[in-house]
């Protein structure tokens, strides 16, 4: 299952790499030589059912394109994450909400005592323990 998810990413990457021209299964498979033709076909089929991929008929072969660009999807996710979408509870409360300008001033003052971070003393300290 996890492997299939990984392969879905790779196939989408290939399709996003050629947004203008629709690709046949064989063309996609050639870009991912470690995987069998039928596996690619299965993955494309799954992606089509998820409506991530559009299929068009071209003679006897099918051609596939990404339903939308990577940027479009990223923008959709960010819109949801920033709470501008109607179903804002799709995502857990994000790390920081926007603060007002006056609040920002107060907060920067409060942080002033800690230095503005340009001294670099606390950079590159990795988490002590990986959980």
């Amino acid at each position, binding site marked *: 299952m996890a492997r299939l998810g990984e392969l879905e990413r790779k196939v989408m990457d290939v399709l996003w790499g050629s947004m203008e021209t629709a690709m046949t299964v064989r063309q996609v498979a050639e870009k991912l030589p470690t995987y069998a033709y039928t596996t690619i076909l299965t993955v494309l089929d799954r992606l089509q059912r998820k409506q991530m991929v559009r299929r068009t008929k071209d003679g006897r072969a099918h051609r596939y394109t990404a339903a939308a660009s990577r940027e479009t999807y990223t923008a959709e996710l960010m819109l949801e994450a920033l709470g501008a979408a109607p179903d804002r509870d799709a995502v857990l409360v994000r790390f920081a909400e926007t603060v007002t300008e006056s609040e*920002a001033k107060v907060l920067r003052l409060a942080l002033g005592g800690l230095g503005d971070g340009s001294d670099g003393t606390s950079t590159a300290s990795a988490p002590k323990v990986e959980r």
Partner: protein
Amino acid sequence: MRLHVVAGCLLAVSVACMGPGAIWLDRARWTSRAPRAAVVLWQAMGVTGALAAIGAGLAVAVARYGVGFRAGLEHLGAGLVDGHPLTGLGLPDALGLTLAADVAIVLVAVAVITMVRTVRARARHRMLVDLVSVETEQAAGALVLDHPKATAYCLPGIRPRIVISAGALRILRSSELAAVVEHERGHACEHHGLVMLPLTSLGEPLRWIPYARRAPVAVATLLEMAADDYSARQHDRRDLARALVQMGTAVTAPACAFAAGGTSVPARVQRLLADDPPARLMAGAVLGGAALLVVLPFAALLA
């Protein structure tokens, strides 16, 4: 007669939890010193508010049998199976109970629909994140969205995702970034998504009840504080505070979207910088109170 008195008391308890109790807890200052315990108290208030109301209805329904609560429930069960649950009730009681049952059914239906919608929205979000995000060494354990705006969040689920935008990577130093990722890991490990799900699902349809309106906002803030504490166990509180300010001032989302709610960021930053020792005694007392609160309706009916 006795059961009618119990029903009246339970109704009063329910109203107290849903109204003045919720308003009191929302305004209380101590909650930021024991955020986890405060969240449990919020949950206990909600559960007791609902249970006490249900208990009051049942008490009225079984009072006519005159055999006490437990035996009365059996009679009521038999009545429901026979299809004559209202026999022996006066008109006001019968109408009241029917209305209460209808309201309960509608509420449950609305809550279930909202939950299903939320879970579906999360599933789509998860699918897109998995396909669109890139992994970088810069933020181990997090998926990165290639977008200039700064954001970081935890997507709840069986396998939660921690998502960070390229904009956030740009403005955070590595120590701050690690603290932020750990904060989100706190949300994931403590299953804050599950805590929020019933609150957000019932909050919208029941906005006229103070509890339903206030609990989602208040608990969300408390969960942020809980996640801050989780991160502070392994990282410098000041790094997290700095990250909060950086991210809070960097996001250039439409201001109108957040203007109404007021934000919790200033309170959280001050809390992180103050670094008060955890109020264990208070947390214990609050948890005890929460437990008593949940037991109350059962004790009133079964004692």
